[in-house]
């Protein structure tokens, strides 16, 4: 029998962790050995919808969800023993250059989630990771403890100085890029932040990849909702090289909503 390429799977929730006032981490009773850092799942909540969620860990399969709307709100209602249905892993993963010894990851908000997964895989490959984590204020920081378990050093910045350095991630990232031998840089978080990191890396000639978010529907390169430049975020991304991302006229400037209108 012919099989479908991206079947929907359903797994049982093992654990739900309250990270802060708006983010919960959901750990499933299932592994996804094929999943690579930077890839995502299309998570289906019957009756609510289906939305992309970054993979935070493949073993056990873990996602972290900010409660901002319909699907994410339903996911926040889940308790251990509940069900999560998903397709994936989907999308292109991060690339670590061959013979890399030290990488830098920069995360903002739930953008830290795929960065943990990347640092974990880097560690398994005997590569050091330095992490810069940015947030508005102390209580917005997520997955800090997990990052410490897989990174060589973690630097925290908050806009209001309630944790770590006061300021944004950029100055900290610049200090590290200029002061240490860093083989490649990865950023996931607010798009303006990623744009700034991408430019910084281009200036310093350090390879850099960013993880771009766009409104996705099909997740498999058909419907065109997540178009950016001439590419699709779901199959050509969400990970793009800094160079490619900066070549997109919309990067850091415009998104599209569910109807395709520029916002």
């Amino acid at each position, binding site marked *: 029998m012919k099989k479908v390429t991206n079947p929907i799977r359903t797994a049982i929730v093992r654990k739900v962790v309250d990270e802060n006032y708006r983010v919960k981490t959901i750990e499933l009773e299932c592994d996804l050995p094929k999943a690579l850092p930077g890839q995502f799942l299309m998570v289906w909540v*019957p009756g609510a*919808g289906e939305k992309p969620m970054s993979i935070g860990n493949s073993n056990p399969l873990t996602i972290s969800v900010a409660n901002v709307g319909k699907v994410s709100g339903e996911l926040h209602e889940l308790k251990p023993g509940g*069900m999560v*249905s998903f397709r994936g892993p989907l999308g292109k993963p991060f690339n670590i250059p061959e013979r890399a010894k030290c990488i830098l990851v920069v995360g903002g908000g739930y953008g830290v989630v795929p960065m943990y997964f990347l640092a974990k895989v880097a560690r398994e490959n005997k590569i050091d990771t330095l992490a810069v984590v940015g947030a508005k204020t102390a209580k917005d920081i997520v997955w800090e403890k997990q990052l410490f378990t897989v990174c060589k050093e973690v630097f925290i910045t908050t806009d209001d100085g309630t944790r770590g350095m006061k300021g944004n991630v950029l100055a900290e990232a610049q200090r590290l890029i200029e002061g240490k031998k860093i083989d490649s840089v990865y950023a996931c978080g607010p798009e303006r932040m990623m744009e700034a990191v991408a430019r910084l890396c281009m200036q310093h000639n350090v390879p850099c990849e960013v993880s771009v978010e766009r409104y996705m529907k099909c997740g498999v390169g*058909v*419907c*065109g909702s997540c*178009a950016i430049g001439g590419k699709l975020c779901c199959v050509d991304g969400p990970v793009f090289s800094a160079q490619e991302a900066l070549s997109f006229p919309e990067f850091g400037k415009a998104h599209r909503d569910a109807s*395709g209108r520029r916002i």
Partner: protein
Amino acid sequence: MASLECAFFKKRIKNPIILASGVLGMTKGSLEAACENGCGGVIAKSLTLEPRKGHDGPNIVETECGLLNAMGYPNPGIESGLAEFGGWARDEALIISIVGKDAGEFGQLAARVEEAKKTLGASAIEAAISCPHTPGYGTMAGQGTPESIKEITRAIKDKCSLPLIIKLSPSIPGEGKAAKAAEDAGADAINMGNSLGPGMKIDLARRKPILGFGVGGLTGPAIKPIIVRAVHDIYRSVKIPIIGTGGITTGEDAIEMMMAGASWVSAGSAVYYRGPKAFGEIAKEMKAWMEGNGVKSLPEITGCCP
């Protein structure tokens, strides 16, 4: 040397392979990319009078034999849509697709396209009256009857001077009669056709239909035999040219559709099965088939199957 070059109304296009509406075509950047990837023309995402978010997800689910989709016509609306797609200056043909709830809405949409015509750069306008999964539109609004087809066709012809393509559903009885109704009312071409159905796929673990809307239109390899038969019927019922759409993923599929009676073919799901470069690959395969079979130009094969 076999040539795929052909006429598309006032234009000459490099091949008869056209991107189907609603696949990739939400943005001008995507349409341009499809052209770079080898198609001779592109049909933009269908536009409605007002912006539409579309149905809740899942919007697409793969089945063993094709794709089911229930997008629900997400689109930025005619104003933003024409601004997005306009200023088309490429050699490939741009076709603007419109969908309305009734002849009145189709007329209003056509009038907006006519107003924008000078700067738009479009070669034709297509009216989809055939979606099987959007309440108020297409087959869910009874737009597939000969009377309704005539009324809609006239309303558009009345307001817009671009060549008009009427896109029919393969799920209506008597495709030939439907196409004839469009021709009699002034349509310049027929597109057969839209997705088939609606169909349903149920998730066993959840015991629920997977698509957010419950049901959706079937596309891809599963529907090709039905489309080939419908195009064959229509070819015998009308004199205006036909776009054959449904399940084309290879050059041989395209040749088969043309033998049934199509002058052009359009493809959407092929992008899922073969990636964005599908169009160029289909073109290459068509050319190889023609060369291997002593066919020099496309008109030799259109409708050659009795």
